[in-house]
């Protein structure tokens, strides 16, 4: 790709992002957000429809499709993080570690010839199970201390991978690509004259996963559980006095979140067909959190544009790719300082439609 071309695409991306942030603050933008928030479940179909349209349009572009799949996978992981601290207020700085656990599970189990969908599920479950080791300390401690435990865990995880030779040490492991219904996702789809990159397969897989879990997370938010999570996040003591089982919901949200992050990690590993400890640094964990914070803590829809911003822009705009951590660090600092609810703040849950008001 010519460098001028790159600049055009990059500036178009940046412009459209800023435009959408701008629109989010206008009346029309708020109406649109209200539609996304209040419409029935069918609105979630927007994700696979739009994703499929973009995927088909780009069906020959390996790199662009890989970016698209990466965005979707990161969005899935960030929905897990949103459940954890957007809803339940459980701080998890070890997002990338659970993502990595999913990936390494896929590497180990995929090599044994298990069905790929089972491997994905196993990625989620193993990551949740290992997360359970952290639950006791996270529950016993509050705020800063819980944060420290997850930070210590992500550093520990990385050093563990670096020195553990069964898991490939610093060189990492090869991962079997997924095979679903006899069809290897490593070969692109061919129908007549239509030939697609194999990344399109992963775009489709990620779209399906994202749509399902997005819908589940939406239901979770708009449920008795969602109300419980919100109230214990805002005031754990007050919630306990009114009968909310705070410890139980902390555990549940941590586990559910880690399942999603683990599944995302397994998908990512299968797509890349290779993972190494250097993918799972503390910096990466911070980038994942940046997606959630920049979008708007607790706002599911905001995760998608924020994931595009964090994943695609630095890749497309090579001038800043070297500076990506710096740029996003500064962006997050500014957002937290001046607009702590994020660029697209979460809107309040209501049941107006359900009760016919």
């Amino acid at each position, binding site marked *: 790709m010519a460098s001028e071309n790159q600049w055009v695409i990059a500036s178009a991306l940046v412009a459209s992002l800023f435009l959408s942030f701008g629109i989010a603050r206008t009346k029309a933008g708020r109406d649109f957000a209200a539609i996304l928030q209040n419409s029935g479940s069918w609105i979630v179909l927007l994700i696979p429809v739009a994703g499929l349209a973009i995927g088909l349009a780009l069906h020959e572009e390996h790199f662009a499709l890989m970016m698209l799949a990466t965005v979707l996978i990161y969005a899935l992981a960030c929905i897990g993080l949103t459940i954890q601290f957007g809803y339940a207020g459980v701080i998890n700085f070890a997002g990338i570690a659970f993502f990595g656990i999913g990936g390494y599970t896929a590497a180990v189990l995929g090599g044994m010839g298990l069905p790929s969908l089972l491997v994905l599920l196993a990625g989620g479950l193993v990551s949740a199970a290992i997360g359970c080791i952290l639950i006791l300390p996270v529950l016993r401690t509050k705020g800063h201390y819980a944060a420290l435990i997850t930070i*210590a865990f992500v*550093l520990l995880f990385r050093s563990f991978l670096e020195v553990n030779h069964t898991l490939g040490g610093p060189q990492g492991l090869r991962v079997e690509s997924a095979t679903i219904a006899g069809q290897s996702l490593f070969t692109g789809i061919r129908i007549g004259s239509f030939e697609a990159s194999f990344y399109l397969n992963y775009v489709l897989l990620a779209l399906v996963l994202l749509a399902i879990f997005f819908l589940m997370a939406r239901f979770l938010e708009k449920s008795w559980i969602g109300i419980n999570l919100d109230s214990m996040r805002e005031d754990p003591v007050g919630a306990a006095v009114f009968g909310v089982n705070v410890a139980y919901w902390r555990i549940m949200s941590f586990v559910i979140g880690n399942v999603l992050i683990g599944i995302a990690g397994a998908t990512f590993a299968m797509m890349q067909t290779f993972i190494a400890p250097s993918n799972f640094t503390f910096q990466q964990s911070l980038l994942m959190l940046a997606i959630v914070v920049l979008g708007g803590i607790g706002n599911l829809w905001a995760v998608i544009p924020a994931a595009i911003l964090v994943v695609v822009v630095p890749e497309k705009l090579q001038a800043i790719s070297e500076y990506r951590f710096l740029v996003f660090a500064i962006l997050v600092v500014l957002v937290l300082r001046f607009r702590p609810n994020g660029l697209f703040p979460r809107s309040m849950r209501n049941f107006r439609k359900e009760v016919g008001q």
Partner: protein
Amino acid sequence: MAILLEYLFNGALLGVIYALVAVGFTLFFGVLDVIKFSHGDVLTLGAYSGLAAFVSLELLGLDLPVVSLIFVLVVAMLVTGLAGIAIGQFFVVPMRGSPAFNILLMTLMIGTAIHECIRLFVPGGANPKAFPTLLPRTPIEIGGAYIRLDSLLLLVLGIGVIVVTNWMVRHTKLGLAIRAVAQDGDTAQIMGIPFRRVVLATFALGSMLAGVAGVMNGLYYSEINFNVGVLLGVIGFSSAVVGGLGSIWGAIIGGFSFAALQTVWVLFFPEMSGYRDVFAFTTIIVLMTIWPTGIIAERYSERV
């Protein structure tokens, strides 16, 4: 026996560096109930500004070891102190009242910005840099063990700085104000203590300790890199937490405990020394499960 002594000595030196960082965390937490996670990267900044000071002395053609050392330390402390004040003034103090998570994440990101700036804008910043040898490396024999003179001096320097800090907090007017704010910020304000100034002074003081720790770390390993602060920050924070956030003695004990954990692991499993951080952090996590508020805080919770 001799080897044991060497291990003990190196562990003590690491402990002093960790304790210096931990005391900073404890001071910030004391006055403002916040964790300023950029602390580790402020340390890196200190190390690099010390290096820059040395390089500029060299360019001027001055080669006086003692003067260089003092100049390097002063510059490092000046830069880190100012950085501490700036972070406090523009980011942490205005965020008082936000959720703890927001402040934690924000300061983490400030730290990231600092070390990314070093990586990107310092010539050759992405690679480890040699740190000058400013202290004589003569080996000294103590009971059959050989200990480098510079390490001994560093140990003395670190302990001295901690003692002076402790004395300042306990016996000076500033220390009194810091302790008053730590007890109850609002009341201290009513009693006429300039809250913001005390907080910023605390940030300066804590960050200067990080500056000293950064230079010490550079002198000890003869090398610095842009990433050193992340791990040292987490270690310092762990030490402060395990000791009991808010207590200076807790921070010191925590720092030495962490170094002891690492040293013990290397001592017993020399062929698996790569796992020393895994072991140390796992132990910290277990310790925190047993004592969620730290070892010291519960028993005699004397804050700062």
